[in-house]
């Protein structure tokens, strides 16, 4: 069983004063734990001393036996005293441990907003990118060696090859490597800062170059004709999504259906309709419009190319058929490719829809120009490559909140320790690539548990969009043919 620890990035709310207070209290609790540990040691020392003293009078019956003295010897039940000392030592030790866990929990909550970590990641990204520009072969070889070492560790640990270890061991370099490699593909100058404003969208430029051949191959394999048909039911039917957690739950459930997009209509007391469109990730079916080639098109730096992708057309057609009107508020919720589609539609200035909020899970969308008026809630997991394929960090702004998850061992099942990370449902003992919805949901859960004010604000924004009652859930299946 695995857990996920969340960190929150963006123009976050929590003031410096609050963070300082958390740090101060965590320090005080740590010192309290040490103090209690010292008290436990004092009891241990007292225990030894009393035992030694009691042995120093072995021939005094009354003392040794603790019996009532009849002949002037002192009576002392040192056995009972030793027993009490032992109990006190254990209690003090247990209290020290509990204080230490509480201090750890505060540090964890404090680390939810780790600016230092964010800055370090940006520096590492720049360094790896620079290294790729100067020594592409050496850097690639170094990265491969690291991945191989990670894989070897995985073999030693699990007795089989597991790519998750290779991915995890190079996670810190993913964005930089992708950006550096993209620079080569996009044939950009190695140090663009010397020739103008620095850019972070190398990955999208590279995708733009690859989009034409990818699209051509896609059309060759899948055909270019998109068929969107409404299907009657989804089993089980998706319930109303009144929170981001609900929306992620529905996204997780929808992933089990074949190439299906769900469109849910809500109607509030004021008579306004609002919609939630749930879009799954890349599908393994040959005739799915949510195929591999569409990923490349959607990652292009050209928004016209996005709209040519069959997957984006599929979602737009489903939205149109569902009857979404231009003034209706729409929230798009997508996993992986579904999230890239959501960002592409939100970034499309000419779109007919009022996209108020997008929720993405494991989607590389840092360079999609989503307008500030659209709220973006992004979940990304450090140890997997997919969300790093944009080669950049998401923009830090109030309306764009990024929750980054780090995979850890499973949290404690009870006590305060259970909030140090959120458990990943359905995860086994073997390590796996943490791209699945269960990991993304755990990242959100972790941020929620730790009381992220920003996560609550985004949740409240989403909830306002879908404040009305659920009226209908419509399901659309897309297929490609020649």
């Amino acid at each position, binding site marked *: 069983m695995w857990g996920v620890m969340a960190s929150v990035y963006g123009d976050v709310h929590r003031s410096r004063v609050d963070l300082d207070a958390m740090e101060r209290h965590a320090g005080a609790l740590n010192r309290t734990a040490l103090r209690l540990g010292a008290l436990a040691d004092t009891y241990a020392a007292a225990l030894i001393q009393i035992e030694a003293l009691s042995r120093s009078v*072995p021939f*005094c019956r009354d003392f040794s036996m603790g019996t009532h003295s009849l002949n002037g010897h002192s009576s002392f039940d040192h056995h009972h005293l030793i027993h*009490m000392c032992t109990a006190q030592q254990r209690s003090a030790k247990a209290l020290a441990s509990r204080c230490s866990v509480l201090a750890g929990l505060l540090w964890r*909550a404090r680390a939810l907003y780790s600016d230092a970590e964010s800055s370090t990641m940006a520096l590492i990204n720049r360094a790896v990118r620079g290294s790729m520009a100067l020594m592409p072969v050496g850097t690639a070889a170094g990265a491969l060696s690291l991945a191989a070492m990670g894989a070897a560790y995985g073999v030693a640990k699990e007795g089989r090859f597991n790519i998750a270890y290779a991915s995890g061991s190079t996670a810190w370099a993913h964005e930089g490597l992708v950006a550096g490699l993209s620079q080569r593909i996009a044939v950009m100058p190695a140090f663009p800062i010397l020739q103008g404003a620095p850019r972070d969208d190398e990955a999208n430029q590279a995708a733009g170059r690859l989009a034409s051949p990818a699209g051509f191959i896609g059309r060759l394999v899948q055909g270019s004709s998109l068929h969107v048909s409404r299907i009657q039911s989804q089993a089980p039917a998706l319930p109303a999504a009144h929170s981001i957690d609900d929306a992620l739950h529905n996204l997780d459930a929808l992933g089990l259906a074949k190439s299906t997009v769900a469109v849910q209509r809500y109607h509030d007391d004021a008579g306004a309709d609002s919609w939630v469109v749930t879009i799954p990730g890349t599908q393994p079916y040959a005739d799915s419009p949510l195929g591999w080639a569409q990923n490349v098109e959607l990652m292009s730096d050209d928004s016209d190319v996005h709209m040519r992708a069959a997957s984006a057309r599929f979602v737009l057609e489903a939205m149109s058929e569902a009857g979404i009107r231009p003034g209706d508020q729409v929230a798009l919720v997508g996993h992986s490719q579904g999230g890239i589609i959501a960002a592409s539609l939100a970034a499309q200035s000419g779109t007919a829809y009022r996209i108020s909020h997008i929720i993405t899970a494991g989607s590389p969308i840092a360079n999609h120009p989503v307008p500030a008026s659209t709220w973006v809630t992004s979940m990304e997991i450090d140890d997997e490559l997919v969300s790093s394929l944009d080669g950049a960090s998401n923009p830090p702004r109030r309306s764009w909140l990024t929750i980054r998850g780090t995979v850890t061992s499973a949290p404690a099942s009870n006590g305060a320790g*259970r909030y140090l990370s959120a458990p990943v449902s359905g995860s086994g003992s073997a390590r796996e690539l943490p791209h699945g919805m269960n990991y993304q949901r755990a990242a959100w859960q972790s941020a929620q548990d730790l009381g992220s004010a920003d996560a609550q604000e985004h949740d409240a924004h989403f909830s306002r969009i879908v404040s009305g009652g659920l009226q209908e859930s419509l399901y659309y299946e897309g297929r490609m043919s020649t």
Partner: protein
Amino acid sequence: MTSTSSQTAFAFAPPAAIGALPQLPDMGVDASWCRCHAVVRQCQSTVSRVTADTDDTVQECRSVLVRAGLLDWQGAAAECFRAELAGIDALLGALEMSSREMLRMSLIQGAR
């Protein structure tokens, strides 16, 4: 005379390592000179010291817990945090009570 009697008593006592001490005959002598009295005082002093240490520690911990309880923090983890603070406070109370009971016991027994 007293000294001789005591020496006689000790001469018959087996080493502690061999096992439980047998019931020794009450020689009817004054044992106020016995080292056991000093040992009891030392034990009492030890218990008194750890009790004082416990009192100080508990006071310090309680003030830290009270301040930590005022932290402006929301969410499930925060609720658990506050519940845990209350639980620790209750256990600190129990620790304090037990240490006082130890001291009381050592004083009463030593006086017998």
